[in-house]
């Protein structure tokens, strides 16, 4: 449901015999599918146990008409539970190119993410790399950089797990405010946009 707010998406009709994803603009180069589209109103909670969630994940993987795609990125909830197991089970016949692990610099976050790495290894997913998010905040008033959520976690995790650190994204309040617009287009000179481009280049080379 996080994805739905990044793009302006009100009032799209998506249900046909199979599901058509929602395109962010006329070029139709970026499509989104989310359960967020299926809720009547934004306050409605999805209160489902495992079997129903598993069935929904399966439907999203088998019933959406993506058309020809270069990249399909699957955003998962935190943890190592029904949704993750379901995705892996349903992708058994399909080549999953890999997983990107996102962490913050804190030890508390690293501790959780180590388990995510274990999940990937147990289920045979290649780990493409780690992205460290919320890595430092540059004060807009005095340019002092503060490590609000500690520092160095991404690097130490990458070293510990022998996984590539793809990049470290600093906190930039302007990115959160974009809501529907691309950071790389609207803030091309921001540290975030630069790091995103580097990450994508590294992934393309893999």
């Amino acid at each position: 449901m996080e994805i739905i707010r990044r793009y302006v998406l009100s009032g799209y009709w998506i249900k046909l015999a199979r599901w058509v994803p929602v395109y962010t603009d006329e070029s139709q180069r970026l499509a989104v599918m989310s359960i967020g589209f299926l809720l009547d109103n934004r306050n409605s909670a999805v209160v489902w146990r495992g079997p129903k969630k598993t069935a929904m994940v399966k439907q999203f993987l088998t019933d959406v008409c993506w058309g020809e795609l270069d990249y399909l990125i699957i955003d998962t909830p935190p943890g190592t539970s029904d949704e993750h197991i379901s995705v892996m089970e349903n992708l058994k016949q399909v080549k999953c190119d890999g997983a990107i692990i996102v962490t913050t610099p804190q030890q508390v976050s690293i501790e959780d993410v180590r388990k995510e790495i274990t999940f990937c290894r147990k289920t045979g997913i290649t780990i493409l790399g780690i992205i460290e998010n919320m890595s430092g905040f540059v004060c807009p008033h005095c340019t002092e950089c503060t490590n609000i959520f500690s520092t160095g976690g991404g690097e130490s995790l990458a070293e510990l797990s022998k996984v590539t650190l793809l990049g470290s994204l600093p906190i930039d309040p302007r990115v959160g405010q974009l809501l529907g617009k691309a950071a790389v287009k609207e803030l091309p000179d921001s540290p975030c946009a630069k790091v995103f481009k580097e990450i994508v280049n590294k992934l393309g080379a893999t």
Partner: protein
Amino acid sequence: MSTVVEKPKSIPEHCPGTQSDNAGRASACAGCPNQQICSTGPKTPDAGIQLVKDRLEQVRYKILILSGKGGVGKSTVTALLTRTLASQDPERNVAVLDIDICGPSQPRVLGVLDEQVHQSGSGWSPVYVEDNLSVMSIGFLLSSPDDAVIWRGPKKNGMIRQFLSEVDWGKLDYLLMDTPPGRSHWSHYCDNTTSRALLDVRKEIDFCKKVKVDVLGVIENMSVFACPCCQRLSEIFPATTGGAKQMCKELDVPFLGSLPLDPRIARCCDEGKDFVTALPNTPAVKALNDIVTKLVETCERKLNK
């Protein structure tokens, strides 16, 4: 004599369970070989629920800490609230039940990472952080930090049920339950101020109303950041739709308070140190004390109703 209907091998995908009130009557039951037995047979009360009730009888206030979203600082806030409750009154007995089965953070955050849980005739003993503060977490049962709990819902629910029915807390005033983000296992919120986090908190509030759990209030975490160099304030996660206060007004739930960002909190959590007693004069601890005072008043008012 009571009978328990055993599930047939080919159960429907969304079987409500043979002990459920909907057994035999749900739409998923159509075509199941046990449908008639389930719909007509006598229902036995779930023995597990009674065990949980018995176990938690000596706990005065049981509080769930929920957030629809990951990354809002729920585990941190749970630990801070617990520390504040314990430090405000040494006679007050407080505990944390960490039921984030996939990502148990409380052992580290409370500084008891290497402790072990012991089992006795009266159940599992929680780990004591202070004389009046204890904690139970699946984190204590994992042999290595890399061990992942890769379980589907039913097995996780079983573990949660075990925690609720088998931990010997003794007499407690407050039991705070740190939950995983989302609602599939459940039913005090914690949210960032951006509209995305709030959207998920709205769903969480909706969930509580659906399952009839009282919303004691919303805590807005990471509200502002004071630069340690120039002391000026920045909104790192800007409130694009009026923030938590506005949302609370709309949804008619109490707003307990805002916690500012303080890098020392993250450091203390990583090191398992007690931020509340180490830095009592910080804006964050002052805010925590106000929040806990409001929470205690709300709980006592509800009990006395």
